[in-house]
């Protein structure tokens, strides 16, 4: 009887084992990166659609929310909606955070966001009269309007949840393929 030395026997026929593992790893890594990229694109679209359908005339903000990736020496780094690239009002104020969280316009004559945003007319049926129509501009919040609170859109948190779900699915798929390749 031949004595069995190895539980798993590696022979030299076909592709050398180290090359095989390297190829499988590289292929799956590429596939996982592709899945993550598609997930980020999908997430950005969901965030955009929440902003576009809000009725608050946030098209400019929605269009600035993009999934971006770059290959660095530390690996693939990416994100959605780079804060530095998000639009500001004509008074230079950020407004992405305020609409995500919801807010009440201040009582002292200052408002968040303050200023005009340009573009097309807002949908008067949707945003509850939170703007004033100026010459060539559509101002968000009018000093004469009732200072009603603007409820949160939560587009960042819903986006995060969407991305986490997609990535979890992609990793599950990746693990299954890795297991299948190892057999």
């Amino acid at each position, binding site marked *: 009887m031949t004595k069995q030395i190895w539980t798993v026997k590696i022979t030299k026929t076909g592709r050398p084992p180290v090359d095989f593992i390297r190829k499988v790893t590289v292929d799956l890594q590429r596939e996982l990166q592709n899945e993550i990229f598609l997930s980020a694109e999908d997430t950005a679209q969901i965030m955009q659609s929440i902003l576009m359908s809000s009725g608050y005339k946030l098209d400019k903000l929605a269009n600035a929310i993009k999934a971006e990736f770059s290959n660095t020496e530390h690996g693939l780094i990416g994100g959605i909606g780079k804060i530095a690239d998000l639009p500001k009002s004509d008074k230079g*104020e*950020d407004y992405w*955070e*305020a609409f995500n*969280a*919801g*807010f*009440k*316009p*201040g*009582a002292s004559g*200052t*408002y*968040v966001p*303050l200023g005009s945003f340009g573009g097309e007319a807002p949908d008067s049926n949707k945003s509850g009269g939170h703007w004033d129509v100026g010459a060539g501009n559509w101002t968000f919040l009018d000093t004469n309007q009732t200072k*009603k*609170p603007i*409820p*949160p859109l*939560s587009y960042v*948190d*819903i986006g*995060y*949840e969407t991305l*986490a*779900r997609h990535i979890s699915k992609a990793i599950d798929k990746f693990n299954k393929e890795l297991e299948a390749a190892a057999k």
Partner: protein
Amino acid sequence: MSTYRNYRNLEKSLIDYLTAELVTDGWEVRVEKAFSQVYEGTLPCILINVESSNVIRREVGSSSYLENILVSIRLFCLNDGERLDLASWTLSKIMPGISYYAYTITSGVVSEKTLAGRINCLEITANRKELVNLEGLALQDKFRHLLSLRCRVSLS
């Protein structure tokens, strides 16, 4: 007579539970469901909302489903210290899981509630100060904290 469906049952169960626990622990905090109501009373205040849900099959080919529900708990406080204390207190109360009730409504008022399961928090997806740029904000918006929880209801 009507009944709430699961999202409203979840919101109302959380509101009732936190309201009772706040009284027991000596906090004077309102718990609200509508965003506009936060601005109509005193601080501090807790706002509870179901934001979205993700429904997945329990297993391949199964017709039963699992639903993960994203719940936002917003804390509106008077100062930063209170914000941190209330956030910590809220998490300590919710993390062990809470009872889920099915509510019956008669003439717009809750007439009956029946224990129907348990709400389990699977993950905290956000635990942070919500608004950082404070300039021009109303008092209620100056010290806000966001807790986003991924929850699942297990029916009994």
